[in-house]
Structure formats: C-alpha cells, structure tokens
C-alpha cells in the first residue's frame, strides 16, 4: 500500500459535513485550478464573499447591453442597460479603457458590426411552451455520484449560461457565441482554441435545437476590445465535436474526483503563488491562515450576508448525464 492509499484508508478524517448536492461549474473549476482553498471557502463554508472589480463589473454591464441590443435592436435601451449596470464606484478615470465612457464607445461601435447583417438571435422554446430569444440560456448538466463513498448518491450540477445562440440566415446554421470583453491586445486564437467553457454547450444545442453535437458544432468568441476612441470587435470561431465533449467530461470527472479526495481528507491544499492576482489580494487571505473548521465556520457564518437575489435565471435546460464504461 503506497502512502496515499494508506492515507485514504484511514477512518473518515473530514470535518466537512455531507451535503445533498454540489454545484461545480466552470468558474469552480477555475478556482480549483488556481487555489483549492478558495473552493473550500465557497463550497464547504458557503461564504458569500464575492470579488467584483471594475474589469468584471464592466464586462457584465457590456454583456447586458449587447444582449439587450441583439434582442431588441434598440440602441438607447442597450445603452441604458450598460449605464445602469456599470459599477461606477470602481471608476478612477473616464480615460481608462474600461471606464463607463470607454464601454459606451465600444458598445456603439460594436453594434454597427457587419456580423449582424448575416447573424441574428435564434429563438428557442422553453419546456412550458414559451418562445424566447436564445439569450443567457441557462442550463444544468447534472449527474448522480456516490461522492462520499457511502453509497448515497448526490447530484453534481454543472450550471452554465450560454450568452447567445445565433442563427446565420445566409448559411442556415446555428452557433453558440460567448461575449468576451478585453482591454488588451493578445493572441486570442491561442487563448480560446482549447478553452473549455463552451464545450458542453454542444449538449445544450442538441437538446434545444436537435443538432447532433457529435458531428460538429460551431463555437464563436465575440471579442470586443474596450476603448472610447479605438474599440474593435471580431468573431473567432472554432468547430467542436463529440471528441471535444468527451475530453471535457473526462477533465470534469477528474476534477470531481479531486474534490472527493479533498473532502474525504478534510484538506484542501493552498496554492500560495496565487494569493495575489492582478495586483489584488485574494478575498479569503485574512481567513486562510486557519485550518480550524469550527473557527472558520463561525467566522464565515457571522459575516455571511444573504446574497442579493441573482438576476440570473434558474436553469431551465436540464440534462441528465449517465457516465459508463
């Protein structure tokens, strides 16, 4: 028996409670990769701390504006969405690329894109029969897993939101689009060629539109560079297929297995190199010194605030995955 097997064979070490479901989405996987302790604070202690910055806030506001315009084709309506949702409290100067003014310039530029002469928003029908534009399509890919090794199955939910499902009226085809906002130039092809966020969207396309993801589906990254005077936008597209979905699922299951191991051991490792990111301290830095479950549980429950109702909709595309040999 090797040392790891010996460790795992010990009686249950974990102070963490058992739960009935666990949400592990794309952002959770990102946290797991950058620092598992961050995920420990979020999932085991259910901390309500959220880390909003000007970059993340302006990106969200731009999403709202674009999605509004693509559905309603009303410039001012989209502009209002942008202005009312922009996190103005973080703005230092209107000359910054991601300032409110920079975002307005980018929005006004991007909606004039030639892309919209051939692409339009697709419409899908919800299970209750309501026909809706395919904007912010919320889905839940879920599977049952014996997470605690006790024979009790719990739901593992992968909850995601597809920014846009677009329809090309000239070539009669569909694509999922993910809106990306950036302030920097970069090699976007390298950045997004193997990006995993959009891979499971193929399953949603199959469920909603009857497209066979295994034969290939199109993923578009609509990249918009924020700038008041020199904004730009471009669409990068990649074709994905069944192999990509299988690879995504393997990676996802490995992450679940890793979480199972951390939970069983009662130990989520810390990645000390990532305590600072973009020159900002990790939001859990002040708590991270402690490994005492009771102390952390008390501290976090005292400071936890009821999260303001998310304006993101509940998932309405539910897909059950059954994983086999």
């Amino acid at each position, binding site marked *: 028996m090797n040392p790891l097997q010996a460790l795992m064979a010990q009686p249950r070490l974990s102070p963490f409670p058992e739960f009935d479901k666990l949400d592990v989405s794309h952002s959770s996987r990102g946290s797991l990769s950058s620092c598992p302790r961050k995920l420990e604070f979020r999932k085991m202690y259910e901390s309500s701390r959220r880390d909003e910055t000007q970059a993340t806030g302006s990106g969200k506001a731009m999403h709202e504006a674009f999605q509004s315009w693509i559905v*309603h084709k*009303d*410039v*001012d*309506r989209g*502009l*209002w969405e*942008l*202005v*009312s949702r*922009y*996190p*103005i*409290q973080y*703005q230092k100067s*209107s*000359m910054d690329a991601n*300032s*409110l*003014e*920079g975002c*307005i*310039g980018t929005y*006004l530029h991007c909606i004039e894109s030639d892309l919209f002469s051939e692409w*339009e928003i*697709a*419409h*899908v*029908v919800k*299970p209750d*029969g309501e*026909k809706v534009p395919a904007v912010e399509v919320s889905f839940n890919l879920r599977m049952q897993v014996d997470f605690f090794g006790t024979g009790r199955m719990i739901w593992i939910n992968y909850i995601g939101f597809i920014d846009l499902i677009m*329809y090309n*009226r*000239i070539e*009669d085809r569909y694509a999922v689009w993910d809106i990306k906002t950036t302030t920097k130039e970069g090699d976007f092809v390298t950045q997004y060629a193997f990006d995993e966020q959009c891979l499971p969207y193929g*399953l949603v396309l*199959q*469920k*909603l*539109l*009857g497209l066979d993801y295994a034969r290939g589906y199109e993923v578009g990254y609509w990249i918009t560079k924020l700038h*008041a*005077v020199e904004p730009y936008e471009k669409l990068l597209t990649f074709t994905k297929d069944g192999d990509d979905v*299988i690879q995504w*699922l*393997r990676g996802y299951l490995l992450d679940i297995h890793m979480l199972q191991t951390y939970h069983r051991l009662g130990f989520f490792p810390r990645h000390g190199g990532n305590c600072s990111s973009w020159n900002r301290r990790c939001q859990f830095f002040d708590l991270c010194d402690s490994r005492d479950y009771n102390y952390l549980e008390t501290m976090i429950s005292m400071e936890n605030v009821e999260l303001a109702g998310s304006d993101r909709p509940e998932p309405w595309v*539910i*897909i*059950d*995955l*059954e*994983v*086999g*040999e």
Partner: protein
Amino acid sequence: MSFRLNPPKQPAKAVAETPAKKPAFSIGKPKVQKPAQTLTARFEEAKQTQSNLNSLVGKKVEAEPKASGLGNLLANKPVPHEEQVAAKEVATIKLAEISEKYVLNADATEKLPQTVLDDFTAKMQHLIFAMDTQELQTALHSVLNFAQENPHLRDILRAEDIQLVVRAARKSYGLTVVAKTKGKTRTTKKAALDADIMADLADVSFTI
C-alpha cells in the same frame, strides 16, 4: 469511456425553433411584371418621374423618426410615435416637474426615505444644469453612484429620467472622446513640428 443523455421523464415540447427563413438574396422590391407599354408611354412615365425628383431639389426630406424604445423601456412595448416626440422634449423639461414627480409615485416611494428622494432629485437637477458643461461627467457619475447605493430608485424612474441619463451618458462619452483626441492632435502637431525642424536641418550645409 462513454456517456449518454438520459431522456427526460416528461419529454419537453418540440424545441427547435428556426427563425423564419428570409428569401435568399432578394435585394430591393420584388419585380412586378408590367403590361407591355408603348415607347411613348414609357417616355411619358420617365418624364413624370424625373419631374417628381426635380420638385424635391432644395427641399429637406424629413426621415421617419427612428424608434428609440425609451418610452416603454420598462414595459417592453413598441414605442408609439407620440411618445418618441414627448421624449424629445426632455431637453426643455421644467425643473418643477422633476422635483415633484418623485413624491407622486407613492407606492414605489414607500421603500425609500424622503431624504433619499430629496438627494436624488437634487442630483438629477444638478445633472440638468451640468448638461452642457465640463461638470457633466462628475454630475452623471454622482447620479449613477447614488442609484447604485439605493437600488430601489430604479423602481421610480420614469422614461424621461432614463432618457436624461442616457443623453448625459452619450455626452459624457463625447467629452472623453474629445479629451482623448485632443491629446492625440497635440502629439501629431508636435511630431509634425519636429519633422519640419528636421527637414530644415537637413538642408543645412557647412563650408570650411
């Protein structure tokens, strides 16, 4: 490894919804077969068309107003023409109307203390005064900041308030563009001046 998607217990309704197909590449109006005309008749028709066009020369043709949707932002309805016209009159809105309307909407204001309403009214008034000045950005950011601190304000905003904020946002963007472009022009001018000096120096020759 394989996986399969479990069929839902209650199958969803037919879900594929393809947007109505548009005719492939039909540019302009569809061609209508006209009855055969004599050459004279066609000439007369062309003359008439030309005469109509000539009558437009020198006249300004008013385009149909573009739907802005502001009048019904919150109600999600198409915008009637009358409301668009009303929205245009925001520029001349009276301050008295602005100050009064926040106390008129009694249901929505229950959640907001009177002091918040008063402060917001003052900030909106400041925004109106600052509309054509360099103070605009400060006034706009102040309104937006205040609205974020008091999210219930969103419930009492009317179409004309939204119009005002959107208009201010456009102007604020314009100010930033001017400021950024001005910087660039200076740089360009300096570069041009440098280039001129270098060109002059290039002609300098020395004889010993």
